[in-house]
């Protein structure tokens, strides 16, 4: 009987734990972002062009710890009030860097379904939809739901975008997909 109660309690505790999400701290975020945008870790985000966002400037806000310089052996237990800002800065920086590279090269890697130099009005919807699906696979490893794809396609018609260059639209698209909660928690 005792064993039964023990197993029941154990199973309930596993269920409770399963209800909680796991927060990707700085190191894992760096790896996943690097994989999603095909950029080396040190190409993702540098504050003021030289200071690593993920390893230095926003290390604590992104929940990580520094056992060497700061003698911190454990990651922060919960997000701080600056976590959301740091996360968004990192994703935005990485998106800008990827778009800049894809705009320069003859063979773009991530933003490759429409020319980045074109105006938004010149892009066709199937190409944008392809880009959206590709970004979803890269960041979230799944296809977008129809409602999600529609919401992102709607971004192209947002008056705030006007007739901006495709590179600016791509930045908005990349931020909207890459800084979703689903990318930071799993």
């Amino acid at each position, binding site marked *: 009987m005792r064993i039964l109660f023990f197993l029941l309690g154990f199973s309930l505790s596993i269920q409770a734990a399963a209800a909680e999400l796991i927060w990707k701290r700085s190191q894992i975020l760096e790896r996943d972002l690097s994989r999603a945008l095909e950029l080396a870790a040190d190409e993702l985000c540098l504050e*003021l062009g030289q200071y690593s966002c993920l390893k*230095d*400037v926003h*290390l604590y806000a992104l929940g990580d710890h520094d056992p060497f*310089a700061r003698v911190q052996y454990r990651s922060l237990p919960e997000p701080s009030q600056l976590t959301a800002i740091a996360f968004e800065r990192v994703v935005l920086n990485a998106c800008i860097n990827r778009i800049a590279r894809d705009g320069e090269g003859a063979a773009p890697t991530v933003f490759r379904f429409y020319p980045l130099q074109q105006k938004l009005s010149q892009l066709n919807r199937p190409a944008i939809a392809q880009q959206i699906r590709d970004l979803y696979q890269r960041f979230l490893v799944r296809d977008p739901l129809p409602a999600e794809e529609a919401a992102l396609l*709607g971004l192209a018609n947002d008056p705030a975008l006007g007739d901006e260059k495709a590179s600016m639209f791509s930045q*908005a698209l990349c931020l909207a997909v890459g800084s*979703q*909660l689903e990318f930071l928690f799993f």
Partner: protein
Amino acid sequence: MSKKLDRRHLLETAAWLSFWGAYQAKASAAAGSSVSTRGVRPEKLLIAVTANGGASIVDSLLPVLGSDNNRSIRSYTAAEIDIEAGSAFACVRPVPYELGVPVDTNYEMRTFLRKHGRDAAVITHTGTSVNHLIAAQRSLNGNGINRGRTLMEAAAAAHGQSMLLANINMGMGGYGLPGTDPELPRVARAEAVADALLFPLALHREQRIEGRADDKILSAARKVRAELDSTFLSKHNESALLADFVRYQQNIPKLEAAELLEALMFFDQARLAPPLNAHSSRGSLLLKVRTVFPAYATDPLEAQAALAFLLFRYGLTAAVTLGLDDLVRFTEVGEQKEILHLPLAFDWSHNNHQGAQNSMWRRLFSTLDRLIQLLKEEDYLGRPEEGKIWDRSLVYIATEFGRDRETRIGSGHHLNNGSVLISPRIEGNRIYGGVDTSTGLTYGFNPLTGDPDRGREMEEADVYSLLLQALGVNFDGQRDFAGLMRRV
């Protein structure tokens, strides 16, 4: 783990926060240079300075004079000690020390006492651990007397309720760890800062990012993202982590409206930053901290002190933790190098006790001298009716433990020690307790009168109680130190 998030609640909260953000932005604009509302404010400010590695009080403001009576312990000769007329303290003169290259000897402890001795006090105490991590925590949480809250958390909970960044912790090791009180209000949780120089960049989602799209475009992207996030949120509405994250995410407009990045970014990045306007309130303050802390770009302690000043000046923070780390640092003096900061800070005493203690104490006093001077000069929130920032401040030099008194070259850890407090809120120019000159060990004092008591040793909980009393913070089980409070 059972905090529920439903969409209605989220929308209501978002609407309220958005209203509050707009209100705060207006209030900020009306105030010109601060983010708080008008009136004579009751907040008190705590500066916890972490003397990492074991700063021994008998090697700074409570030195023992050598005599026939104490040949078995380390002591100082009369020529090595400064005694100022009218001062309750003696202090140790610079001890020449080299570690391949000279260790900086520019600042003298007596300079600090001349300028701030009236507000300084030594309180003796005996700790309960000689483990760096544990002792550091206990020096800040009073060995758990207040449900595990750190001093900074307790101060922030009492005085930082309306502040944007109530508790900023730049400490390392045990000094950087949060307390253990599960009931601590969210506002009082410490924001851990890895790099004081670049920290302001974490206060805005896109400022100072090169090549970013127009604000309107990024706002449109965020609007769509919020829509996309809703499915994930409803699916994981029992996640406490997510609840915390989203709550803070909703707070971002309020933080950004306060334009803190521009107010606190004292790092001179002429390449990217607009030139400072010396005639604007914010520009002149940034120029001032650069002048007072000229090594801010290379010395983390100066950068931390500069950030602490600005956080207090704008009424953003009730408790700041700053201090020494473990890394060796050099400075250029002419064509020569000098050691600015010893490896392991005060714990270098294992290798050379007096060289380490003397140089690290002087390093701390030098930086604190300039920080306190700034706080004495500047009005809180920039408003003369609020008085000087210093009038409401308390500096506590926390350390893990003292050092043994017997060994000659290097020293080990020892529970017996004392701390330095500096504040206009305590009866200063006083030594509370004393030192037995035959053993070098400190003894305690009567908390109600402040008189020395050779039969008593003060505990970590005493120090904690006293500090919070000076900050006007009460808690269950608090010990009374009425005898040390300054009578106005």
